[in-house]
């Protein structure tokens, strides 16, 4: 039977299996290969908090979703065209997210009696048959059996052989989407350089999967996705935490300051610690502290000592760090607090995404304690956001909070990366040494931006004391004077407010500068809002999208921009946190769209909501 090739504009694939099935790796390798073909793409890994949740159960299902296409791709896709289900639980957990008449690739060995029972199917259930009845195309492949057969000669044990089965799936998909195997062969060669048996087994299985597609007559169609119209340039694929790490390293080089990163492992921020620890040849000092509090306090110490001081964590960690962040604020030292947000409160949903630490960033400290807050909007944007946070903290001598989230941190997208030489230097002004023994050094003397000097220990003639107690203006001596406290409280606020004069005005990301509807967003909702607004503009509606990088202070034109639209819609993955702040500050009515399910907002639901508002005009 001959094979035909069909060209398609976009595809969403979800790889789903047990958390030990290697679905994250399979997805990542397929993504990397997809990027090389020039398609635009977005990914969404979705995994349980437990490293190895009970095998075969619904709780143990780990998924990796990839959306790619020959057009601009903004989101990882709402519904999937192809579901790879390594077992019955993976099918059950994802059945509702498959497109009508979509395709299921089922590993039949994962649908035996035991797996059906673990997935809580009734006795005698035939989920793959049912799926066929519902109009899905189901390919049943005995993947484990085929893998074992192809590795009959391999010296590996049965368990190790079975671990290769994700390569079979990958090989098959490469055939289905007209790819070659080279990028994965290169990867395997690097990864298993020192384990020739494992290398050979993986290679063999990968090829077996590819040939299975080629030779088995069940499959008659392969799919071709053309490159997307993307800007000229050199690209790579990048994940959010990875880009954030590179941004921090770049800021260290550009400011000529050694970087100190104090952190305690926490999902989903740990990869920042891992990433920075691998760049020791850039002079990066990573300090895995005994707890979150020690991590932030060591960061305060490093900032005091003159390093580019960073601490990173997620919401529960920020809760613990509150007092230490307050100390940094009182000492007016430069440091960046990275919060890769996850579902809360308390331990909440460690591996799920949420934007619910915004109010914590604004208000989560004792006293009147304003801090600048900036947010990243996509995986590759983490690079720029990290540099911007470092620049801001060094120029304004205040801790800066940088908000990311689990969706951005673990998501990947193509990145047209910059040349290091094109990234501007970051100027640092240490207080200069002095020989004048008589002159009194004033550590809390301020410049026109209300910024105090950075006088680091070891500088001749500048010995002085700082601390968490309220300070007297200029001298920094302890002061309980009522008028002084009010003055210092106001000046700390004024210093943060002043930053508005040193950041760009808010721009419209897409659409006209005035009109009926504005969709305002921040953080990881960028992709879905872009995609919805793009569609609605094409359909002729008067709609625009503005996305906030700067959350505190807001860009100085924001009020005017919001009032240029009849209605403002604010989608957030929380219970309405930015909405509260915008209402408080600008007293304008807002239409909120809030989703608090630990997952990103889908395009369909947002388009339905925003579209219905547009229809009223």
């Amino acid at each position: 039977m001959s094979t035909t090739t069909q060209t398609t504009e976009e595809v969403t694939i979800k790889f789903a299996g047990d958390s030990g099935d290697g679905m994250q790796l399979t997805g990542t390798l397929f993504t990397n290969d997809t990027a090389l073909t020039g398609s635009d793409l977005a990914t969404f890994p979705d995994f349980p908090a437990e490293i190895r949740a009970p095998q075969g159960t619904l709780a143990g299902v780990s998924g990796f979703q990839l959306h790619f296409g020959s057009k601009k791709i903004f989101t990882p896709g709402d519904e999937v065209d192809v579901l790879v289900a390594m077992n019955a639980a993976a099918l059950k957990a994802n059945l509702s997210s498959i497109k009508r008449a979509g395709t299921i690739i089922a590993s039949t060995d994962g649908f035996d009696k035991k797996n059906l029972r673990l997935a809580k199917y009734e006795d005698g259930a035939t989920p793959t048959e049912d799926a066929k009845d519902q109009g899905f195309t189901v390919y049943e492949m005995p993947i484990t059996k085929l893998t074992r057969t192809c590795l009959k000669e391999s010296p590996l044990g049965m368990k190790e052989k079975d671990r290769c089965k994700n390569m079979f799936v990958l090989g098959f998909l490469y055939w289905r989407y007209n790819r070659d195997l080279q990028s994965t062969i290169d990867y395997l060669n690097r990864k298993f350089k020192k384990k020739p048996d494992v290398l050979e087994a993986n290679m063999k299985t990968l090829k077996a999967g590819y040939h299975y597609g080629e030779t088995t007559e069940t499959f008659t169609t392969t799919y071709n996705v053309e490159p997307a119209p993307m800007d000229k340039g050199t690209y790579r694929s990048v994940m959010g935490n990875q880009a954030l790490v590179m941004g921090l390293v770049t800021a260290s080089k550009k400011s000529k300051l050694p970087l100190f990163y104090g952190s305690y492992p926490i999902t989903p921020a740990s990869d920042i610690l891992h990433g920075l620890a691998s760049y020791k040849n850039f002079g990066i000092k990573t300090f895995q502290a005994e707890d979150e509090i020690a991590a932030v306090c060591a960061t305060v110490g490093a900032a005091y000592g003159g390093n580019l001081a960073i601490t990173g964590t997620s919401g529960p960690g920020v809760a613990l760090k509150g007092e230490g962040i307050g100390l940094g604020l009182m000492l007016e030292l430069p440091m960046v607090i990275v919060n890769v947000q996850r579902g809360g409160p308390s331990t909440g949903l460690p591996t799920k995404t949420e934007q619910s630490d915004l109010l914590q960033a604004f208000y989560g400290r004792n006293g009147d304690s304003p801090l600048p807050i900036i947010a990243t909007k996509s995986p590759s944007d983490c690079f720029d956001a990290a540099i911007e946070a470092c620049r801001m903290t060094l120029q304004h001598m205040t801790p800066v909070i940088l908000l990311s989230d689990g969706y951005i941190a673990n998501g990947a997208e193509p990145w047209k990366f910059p040349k290091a030489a094109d990234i501007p230097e970051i100027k640092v002004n240490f207080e200069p040494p002095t020989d004048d023994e008589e002159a009194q050094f004033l550590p809390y003397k301020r410049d026109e931006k209300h910024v105090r000097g950075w006088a680091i220990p070891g500088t001749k003639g500048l010995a002085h004391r700082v601390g968490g107690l309220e300070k007297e203006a200029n001298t920094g001596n302890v002061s309980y004077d009522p008028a002084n406290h009010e003055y210092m409280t106001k000046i700390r606020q004024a210093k943060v407010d002043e930053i508005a004069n040193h950041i760009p005005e808010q721009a419209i990301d897409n659409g006209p500068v005035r009109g009926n509807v504005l969709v305002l967003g921040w953080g990881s909702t960028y992709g879905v809002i872009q995609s919805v607004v793009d569609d609605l503009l094409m359909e002729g509606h008067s709609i625009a999208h503005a996305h906030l990088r700067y959350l505190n202070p807001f860009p100085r034109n924001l009020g005017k921009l919001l009032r240029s639209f009849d209605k403002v819609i604010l989608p957030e993955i929380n219970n309405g946190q930015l909405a509260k702040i915008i209402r408080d500050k600008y007293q304008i009515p807002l239409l909120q769209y809030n989703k608090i399910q630990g997952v990103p907002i889908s395009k369909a639901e947002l388009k339905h909501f925003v579209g219905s508002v547009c229809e009223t005009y």
Partner: protein
Amino acid sequence: MSTLPADNVVKKLKAKDFATDQDVRWCPGCGDYSILKQVQSVLAELELNKDDTVFISGIGCSSRFPYYMETYGMHSIHGRAPAVVAGLKLANPELDVWMITGDGDGFSIGGNHMIHALRRNLDINMLLFNNEIYGLTKGQYSPTSEVGKKTKSSPLGSLDHPINPLALAMGADATFVARSMDRDPKHLKEMLKRSYFHKGTALLEIYQNCNIFNDGAFFTFTEKKSKPDTTIYLEHEQPLVFGDGTKGIRLDGFKPQIVDLNEGKYTVDDLWVHDEHDQIKGQMLTRFFDDPRTNPDALPRPFGVIYSTERPTYDDMLFAQLGEAVDQLGDGDLDAMIAGGTTWEIK
């Protein structure tokens, strides 16, 4: 960090040059005054440079200390000084960093950091002002207070068994453990110098009298009348003699035993000879912890260097790793990092 030319002759500083213009606000009669004075004079005697010296404290009466030292200083937050110190020392390992803490700051709210700081072994000096009471919050029992202590928060007597700070330090594999007292300035100065010269984290516990909320807590060890029988001053390679030369400690198997040197049965040659590098015996010495006021058979409380050893410091190891990384991978190249492994071109 200082970039001034080297031909600037540094004038020799006196103890008073290390005093700030701030009024010292401890209660009159507080043991902290003595410690402050000895620290200032030790810094002068050691000819330390105030620009390269930093005092970091937590919260509590003792933690006001940095405000009174004409050096760099930070009064940080409760219990967290060990962490601040770690970050500072790793930012600039050239600095002489002194940490000031108290029994509440260091062993209650900051107990976790204390343990990890001791095992981590940065090259810093820690001065623990132990007064067995919470002074700044006006007199609640502290983690080193004796059981049954009656305070505002324990009107019927406290129930908490006290922490033995130096035993805990030995348990955390501290590399330098010593004890002194506010009322013996000569010994205190000597111990401050020993702490300074130790390469690694030096923990010096200083018994300090709080004359307002816990007056006389250590008088049995510090006052002339009782001191000879209740204390033992340790010296490296010297036998454990106390009681004005009349008594000594010998080991009966693993059991320390007080012997009378005048009885004729034992001489100094039979006594335990102090070896400050012996970790097991050091642990035993920290267990000389019974209260002579309630237990007449209590072993004398040791003062001096209980244990010291050399172990690579965290700061040295961290910078060595940075050097090794450069040796192996070359200086970091931003463009190579940003491009990563696999790239593609859109034309």
